[in-house]
């Protein structure tokens, strides 16, 4: 599904990604861990196509196509979803409006007809119920005045609705309380399927108890320095990154 080959990227003039190689097959979940400032969020932004994140060399293939040629919205419409580490506030735009606009934009891209307000509401209600999100959040402006945890839940809600093929989760667990973490993880697991894949950035092994990854990678200083199965996460939890770089 996703093939990253020797990816180098700069932000400003600074090289942040220094040769990433990573292949994610359909059906797989990959966890990425690593110290602060390693370049994890940068990787997710590069994959989503954010402006200012310049790819200087390397390739990324998504479903066999050159991903880097696509605009951010095309990538989104082709099934890449990024749950932001810091979700952005959009004053005055009701969450429901935002969701419906996005949902219909993606339908339109696929050549499907847009859904009307009633139909959409029914759909959203299903998801909010699953994710234990109060309906009044839909009336509030996108992320404005949301608590840290609410913002993260809202990301999962958006993802559940848009049903992406490739989920990119950037520290979605940070800020969630214990119950919410489980609910959010359930949301992700519901989306898991042989046709979908995920890249989950986290600092904590705890999330991986709920969303069990097929692979775990350690990203440090712009490179993947170690890969393994889920036991690697446990090992890191115990020993920290320092032990890794010493080894």
């Amino acid at each position, binding site marked *: 599904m996703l093939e990253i080959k020797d990816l180098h990227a700069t932000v400003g003039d600074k090289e942040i990604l220094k040769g990433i190689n990573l292949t994610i097959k359909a059906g797989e979940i990959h966890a990425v861990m690593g110290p602060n400032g390693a370049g994890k969020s940068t990787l997710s932004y590069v994959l989503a196509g954010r402006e200012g994140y310049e790819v200087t060399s390397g390739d990324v293939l998504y479903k066999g196509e050159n991903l880097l040629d696509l605009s951010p919205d095309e990538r989104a419409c082709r099934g890449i979803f990024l749950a932001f580490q810091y979700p952005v506030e959009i004053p005055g735009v009701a969450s429901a409006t935002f969701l419906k*606009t996005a949902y219909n934009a993606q339908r339109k891209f696929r050549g499907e007809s847009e859904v009307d307000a009633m139909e959409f509401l029914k759909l959203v209600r299903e998801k909010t119920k699953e994710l234990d999100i109060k309906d009044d959040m839909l009336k509030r*402006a996108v992320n404005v005045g949301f608590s840290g945890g609410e913002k993260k839940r809202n990301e999962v809600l958006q993802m559940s609705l848009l049903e992406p093929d490739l989920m990119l989760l950037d520290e979605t667990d940070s800020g969630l309380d214990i119950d919410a973490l489980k609910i959010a993880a359930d949301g992700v697991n519901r989306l898991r399927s042989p046709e979908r894949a995920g890249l989950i950035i986290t600092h904590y092994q705890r999330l991986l108890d709920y969303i069990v990854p097929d692979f775990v990678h350690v990203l440090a200083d712009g490179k993947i320095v170690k890969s393994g199965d889920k036991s690697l996460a446990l090992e890191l939890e115990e020993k920290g990154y320092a032990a890794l770089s010493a080894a």
Partner: protein
Amino acid sequence: MAIARETVEQVNSVSDKYKYGFFSDIESDTAPIGLSEDIVRFISAKKEEPSWLLEWRLKAYRHWLTMIEPEWANVHYPKIDFQDIYYYSAPKQKDKPKSLDEVDPELLEVYKKLGIPLKEQEVLAGVEGAHNVAVDAVFDSVSVATTFRERLEKEGVIFCPISEAVRDHPELVQKFMGSVVPYTDNYYAALNSAVFTDGSFCYIPKGVRCPMELSTYFRINAAQTGQFERTLIIAEEESYVSYLEGCTAPMRDENQLHAAVVELIIMKDAEIKYSTVQNWYPGDENGVGGIYNFVTKRAACRGDNAKVSWTQVETGSAITWKYPSCILQGDNSVGEFYSIAIANNMQQADTGTKMIHLGKNTSSTIISKGISAGKAQNTYRGLVRMGRKAANARNHTVCDSLLIGDKCGAHTVPYIENQSRTATVEHEATTSKVSEEQLFYCQQRGLSEEESMALIVNGFCKEVLQKLPMEFAVEAQKLVGISLEGSVG
């Protein structure tokens, strides 16, 4: 005043040219170019106006000659040559398009985005012979239009062109016209008073709630909007009317200068809601062409508990100079001003309001949303005046500016004059930018860059959009997006 004298001389010299005058030639459909007393007489004669109105026009004209063009607004443009304008029935458009195929595709694209039916597009684009067909298309049949009128008549509501009102209801026109905006008020109001030819008149009798939004008419009327419009609306005691002016479709017009006057009179316990969508041709990206829109709009709350609200969406015109105002004379009267002003490319907007509190317990609310993009300059200019007798009067002003890109400007110029010890005036102002982060967030969910911008800006304007009549709000939202096209990337 040297300039005034110069103007007088110039005007005299020009009117000399018409010594043998067209005036004898009343059959002519067109007055010669330029302005003079003769032209004013010609217009009045053409309209078969009573002598009081001619006198009034002439007084306005003579007063105008003594005035100078205001220069205090934050707008810049080459000097207008008032002798280079046709004041009555300008010559026919050179070549009217024969069909939509001959119309600027860019314009058609916008019509399409707004979802305007084909027949109406033809009228808006000035396709030859389109008008009669389109009236049928819009109203389904002429009889629908008639039904519309009959319904209003049954309620005693008068709604007709201003020239018809002069003929059929002279006592009302004479009593109220110029009572809120006297011809001495300002340069453009004086000019308008001398030469106005179009506009609407609306009278809501005591106790009547106007049975419909006075809006449907306007899509079609707007196609022939005049250069010097004069609108007069009178709401008698305990009456209510919601009036909508303008058109979301971009209008091209041969006339560069537009100077309208709108007067609203609201009696005791009555209410007028006046909504405007202004989308005149703004000129191209380099600021070539585009309408100069110098408007005087004012409402007088004459009785106790009278209420007026101005809601405006200003997206067009090269230059907008407009300050819809409220004179809150009656005790407990309420004035509201909700404004969205978008300036993109080289557009310049200097707009705002005046809230003049005279009565006790009067209150006013101002919500202004200014959006600047491209190299545009957008100024909010607002006056809140609390008179000596305005005990416990209150004003609340919120003035938000949104910047798109870093070559545009937003300016806020509040004037507060408070002579009442018990009055309160609150002013809040913010300036923000559409961030790259917000755009990316929306795009990441599948919206194109332009859709993202439209969504964010609509969010910014939400409080004002909500004040528009329902069926119109949707079009206005689309318009917000369309006006900002080209501002991203």
